[in-house]
C-alpha cells in the first residue's frame, strides 16, 4: 500500500538560510508522528514546508505517491494537506459557524452536514456557534483551529504546537481530538513542546536539533531513551 505522505531528502530554507537539513520520513494513513525538539530546532519550519508556506529547497514530497513538491499553499490545501499553524491564526471577525462554513467544501447541504459533524467531534464549540473567534477561550480557539483544518476531510493533518498556552484541563480534549483524527484515516504530523502528551498520542517520534534528526523511533522506545533529555535541549 502506498504510504500516505513521503518526505525524501526534504530540506527547508527560511530566507536563504537552511533550517532543516535533508530529512526523510514516510507516514501511513492513520499514523500519528510526533516532532520534538527545542525552539528553533526546525519543527515549525518542517511543518510549514509540508503545508506549502515555506519553500522546499531540496528533495521531494509525495502525497499518496503523487509529487506535490512544487505546489503552493492553496494547491496543497486542495490536494488534502491541512495545516493548523502555531498560534492558531483564526479569522478574528468570523464566528465559529462562519469559520467552519468557509473551510468546508461542497454544496450547502454537504457543508451543513460537515459542520454538524465537527460540532459532534468538538461539543465545546457547539455552544458557541455565533461567537466571533476573537471572543473564544484559548481551548475553544484551538478546537476551532483544528476543526477548521479537518472539516474538509484532509488526507494529512499538520499540527504545530496545539498545546501552546492551554490549561492542562483542556489538553485532554485536544489530544483526544488528535487521536480521533488518526482513527478517521488521516496521517497526522504533530510538532509539540509538551513531550509527555506527544509521546502518548504518537506511534513514532522524531527529535530535531539544529535542523537535523538526532533521535528517531517508536515512541515507547524514545520515551525511555537516556539521551532524550539532552536531545530535547539541543545538546
Amino acid at each position, binding site marked *: 500500500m502506498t504510504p500516505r505522505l513521503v518526505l525524501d531528502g526534504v530540506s527547508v530554507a527560511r530566507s536563504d538560510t537552511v533550517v532543516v537539513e535533508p530529512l526523510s520520513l514516510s507516514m501511513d494513513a492513520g499514523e500519528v508522528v510526533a516532532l520534538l525538539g527545542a525552539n528553533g530546532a526546525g519543527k515549525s519550519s518542517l511543518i510549514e514546508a509540508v503545508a506549502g508556506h515555506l519553500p522546499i529547497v531540496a528533495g521531494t514530497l509525495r502525497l499518496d505517491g503523487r509529487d506535490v513538491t512544487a505546489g503552493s499553499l492553496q494547491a496543497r*490545501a486542495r490536494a488534502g494537506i*491541512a495545516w493548523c*499553524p502555531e498560534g492558531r*491564526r483564526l*479569522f*478574528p*471577525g468570523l464566528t465559529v459557524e462562519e469559520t467552519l462554513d468557509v473551510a468546508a467544501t461542497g454544496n450547502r447541504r454537504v457543508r451543513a452536514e460537515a459542520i454538524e459533524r465537527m460540532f459532534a467531534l468538538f461539543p465545546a464549540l457547539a455552544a458557541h456557534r455565533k461567537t466571533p473567534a*476573537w471572543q473564544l477561550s484559548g481551548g475553544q480557539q484551538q478546537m476551532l483551529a483544528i476543526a477548521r483544518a479537518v472539516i474538509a476531510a484532509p488526507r494529512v493533518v499538520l499540527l504545530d504546537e496545539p498545546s501552546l498556552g492551554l490549561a492542562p484541563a483542556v489538553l485532554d480534549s485536544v489530544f483526544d481530538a488528535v487521536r480521533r483524527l488518526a482513527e478517521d484515516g488521516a496521517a497526522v504530523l504533530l510538532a509539540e513542546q509538551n513531550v509527555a502528551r506527544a509521546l502518548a498520542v504518537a506511534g513514532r517520534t522524531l527529535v530535531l536539533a539544529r535542523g537535523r534528526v538526532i533521535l528517531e523511533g517508536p515512541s515507547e522506545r524514545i520515551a525511555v531513551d537516556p539521551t532524550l533529555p539532552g536531545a530535547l535541549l539541543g545538546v
Partner: protein
Amino acid sequence: MIEAIPQLLVNALALGSTYALAALGFVLVINAVGAVNFAHGELVMLGGFVAVGLAATLPETAVLPGLIVLPGVMLALAAVGLVLALIGYAPLRRAPPVSVFISTIAIGLIIQHAVTAGIGPEPRVGPPLIGTGSVELFGAVIARQQLATIAVAGLLLVAVHALLKHTRFGRRLRAAAQDPVMARAIGIPVVLTTAASFAMAGALAGAAGLMLSNQYFVAPTDGAVLMLKAYVATVIGGWGRVWGAALGAFAIAAFETVVAASVSYLVAEVLLYVGVLALLMLRPRGLFGEAEGRRA
C-alpha cells in the same frame, strides 16, 4: 423655522443616502481586502463623469436615461477598480498598510488630474435615474432624484451587508481580508477574491457617482471632499461596519442640513467634529464597535 423641519429632514435623508452610497465601496474593500483605498472618492467622481459621457450618447427624449446608462457606468468603474487593484494594491500587499494609503492617494490625484486635463474642469450635471420633477410629501418638496437615491442607497446597503454577512462568498471575502495566508491554507483563491472585491467596490462607486452627478453636480475636485466624508462616516459607525458607515453618513448629513439651518454651516461643521472627537473618546471603536477584534 419649525415649518421647515419636514423639508430639512427630507433633505437630510437624501443627502445622507448620497454619502452612504459613496462610502459603501470604501467599506467593502476594508471588509473584503483589509485595505484602505483613499482613491475611492475619485472613483465616485469618475463614475459621475462616465455617467455624463454615456448619457450624452443617448437621444434627447430617452426615458429613464440614468437607469439605461447605470449598467455601463458600473461595468466601466468595475474595470477601473481592477486596474487600481493591480497598480495600487497588488504590488504592496506585503508592505505595511500605510503604503497602500499612499499609493491610493497618489492614484486618486492622477485620476483627478486626468479628468481635469482630459474632460475639463467644469462641473457637469449627470442624467436623472428615473426622471426630473418633484413630489410633495408631508409638506416637503422632494425631487424624484432624491427619492431614487434613497431607494438605490437602501437597496445597495442591504445587498452589500447581506453579501458579507449571509453568503458563503461574502464570508470567504472576509476571511481573505482577515488572514490571507490562512485563507489560502483552506483553499480560498485570495487573488480572485481580492480582484472581485475591488471590482465590486468600483461598481458601487460608479452607481454612487451616477446618482450624485444629477442631484449635486460633479466636478473633478469633488473626490477629495467625498473621501473625507466617507472616511469620517466609517470611523463614526465603527471601522468596517456597513450599517455603521451608513449611520455615520446620515449623521454628517444631519449636521449639514438640520443643524446648519439652526446655527450656521461653520458652527454646524465644528459641532460635527467636536461630536466625532467626543464619540471617539467615549467609544474609541465607533458606535457599533469594529467589525473584528484583534485577540485571535
